[in-house]
């Protein structure tokens, strides 16, 4: 029993840590996104609360919590409230196997990559349930789009991840990081440039981010699947969206950018991981405020006609080269 508790302690620490990490990231990222959007449009963004508006998201969060929890008439109440929770809880688990530093790993899981892919599929499900349960035509339309989108974009993502797994012979994220140790030339982005690009594009589709945010497309579906959600129901979806962004950017930097290894040998640590993850996150934000939303048939065409064949080709080429 004693030994069991000793085993349990790091897990509990990791769970609490990832909760805190998720909360901080959501706050920081929302602020960064609004500031970034503002500066791209040459306006200051949030400015009033705190110096340069740094406390704005905190206040917004408090405001959200203070609002009334509404359930629409004739909505399926149980599913309606299940959906935001279902989208939130897996995020906490997703942070566990990601190695943020040489010691800063929640849990070294043999099948870490598979764990992340398996549990991130809950997000799509939550979106679908939310849209369906809110008894709102925009919600149902958003759900219908989310169904097609999540199924479609998971495939190229899996195939690119598989290409990396081919090269490393492991699904353990710590091991994959270790194989990229040394200098910048060992990063997998150089060996798998096509996979990196496909992953980058599929990333937007998986996290429902603009220009692929068809499930919530505010100009056509008001807010899509979360039209009816108020207060923390909406807040949880919001947090989960940023949580998935952080997770997928972390995975991308582990898979392709060497994780916590620096560009030159000798210096490694969590700050590299943080810098890479945030660079990717900023790329996502930047893309959101640059590109217009694609049409739905375009979205599916990009996936089925471009990403999927390219990812398959990449996988075959990787297998061939590994064998030779």
């Amino acid at each position: 029993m004693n030994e069991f508790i000793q085993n349990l302690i790091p897990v509990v620490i990791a769970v609490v840590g990832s909760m805190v990490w998720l909360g901080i990231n959501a706050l920081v990222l929302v602020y960064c996104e609004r500031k970034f959007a503002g500066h791209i449009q040459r306006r200051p963004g949030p400015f009033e609360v705190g110096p340069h508006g740094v406390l704005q998201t905190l206040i917004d969060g408090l405001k959200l919590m203070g609002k009334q929890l509404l359930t629409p008439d004739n909505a399926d109440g149980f599913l309606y409230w299940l959906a935001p929770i279902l989208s939130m809880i897996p995020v906490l688990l997703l942070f566990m196997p990601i190695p943020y530093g040489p010691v800063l790993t929640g849990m070294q899981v043999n099948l870490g990559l598979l764990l992340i892919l398996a549990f991130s599929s809950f997000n799509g499900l939550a979106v679908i349930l939310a849209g369906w349960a809110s008894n709102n035509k925009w919600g149902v339309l958003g759900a219908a789009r989310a169904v097609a989108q999540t199924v479609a974009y998971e495939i190229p993502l899996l195939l690119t991840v598989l290409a990396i797994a081919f090269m490393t012979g492991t699904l353990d994220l710590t091991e994959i990081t270790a194989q990229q140790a040394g200098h910048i030339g060992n990063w997998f982005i150089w060996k798998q440039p096509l996979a990196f690009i496909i992953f980058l594009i599929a990333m937007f589709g998986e996290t429902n981010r603009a220009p692929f945010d068809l499930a919530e497309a505010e100009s056509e579906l008001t807010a899509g699947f979360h039209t009816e959600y108020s207060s923390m129901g909406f807040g949880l979806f919001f947090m989960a969206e940023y949580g998935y962004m952080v997770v997928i950017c972390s995975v991308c930097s582990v898979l392709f950018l060497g994780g916590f290894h620096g560009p030159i040998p000798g210096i490694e640590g969590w700050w590299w991981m943080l810098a890479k993850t945030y660079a990717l996150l900023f790329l996502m934000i930047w893309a959101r405020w640059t590109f217009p939303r694609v049409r739905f048939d375009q979205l599916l065409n990009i996936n089925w006609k471009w990403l999927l064949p390219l990812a398959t080709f990449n996988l075959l080429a990787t297998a061939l080269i590994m064998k030779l």
Partner: protein
Amino acid sequence: MNALRKHVIQPIIDCWSLLVGLKITGKYFCKPLITVHYPRQVIDDENLTTYGGHVELIGKPKDPAMPKCISCMMCVTNCPSGCLKVVKQKVEKPTPEQEQAWKEAEERGEKVVKPKAPKNPAKFVYDYTLCSLCGTCIDNCPAKSLKFSNNIYWVATSRKEMKIDLLARLKGQATDLSAPAPKTEAKPAAAEKEA
């Protein structure tokens, strides 16, 4: 060959355009802000001239209190929302002595010059609550007597205040001009102290 260009080369070029888009927004990100943070800063006068506020009258160059308006009612007929109300001035009733004098002159066979009504309007009332700021009145004014005002700090606290007597306003502006008091400068300075 054509198919190759259409289905392979063109998409690659299109991908390049994505990078161009990123470059443009990135460039804008680095440029200094152009929005002005109101209570701490105000827009300089040069940029104020492009602001289109409510409609106002233009004074004659010689007499700024007197509008160029000739009461032709073009603005009233053209206004789509019917927010302008212009009242022409009436001819002053001639005194009996004058009438007498005219009659005598007519009898003598001379030409009589009866005084005409002054052209400038007696009343020029503008209802800002109805105005859609379309500018049709300004375009149609033959005397070029209307323009958009450019006081961005103008506020009203009641519907009544939104019904502006433009003649009175012009008079007020004329007196302000003769005794220049840069109001807009003083306000932000006070606000800055508060902040």
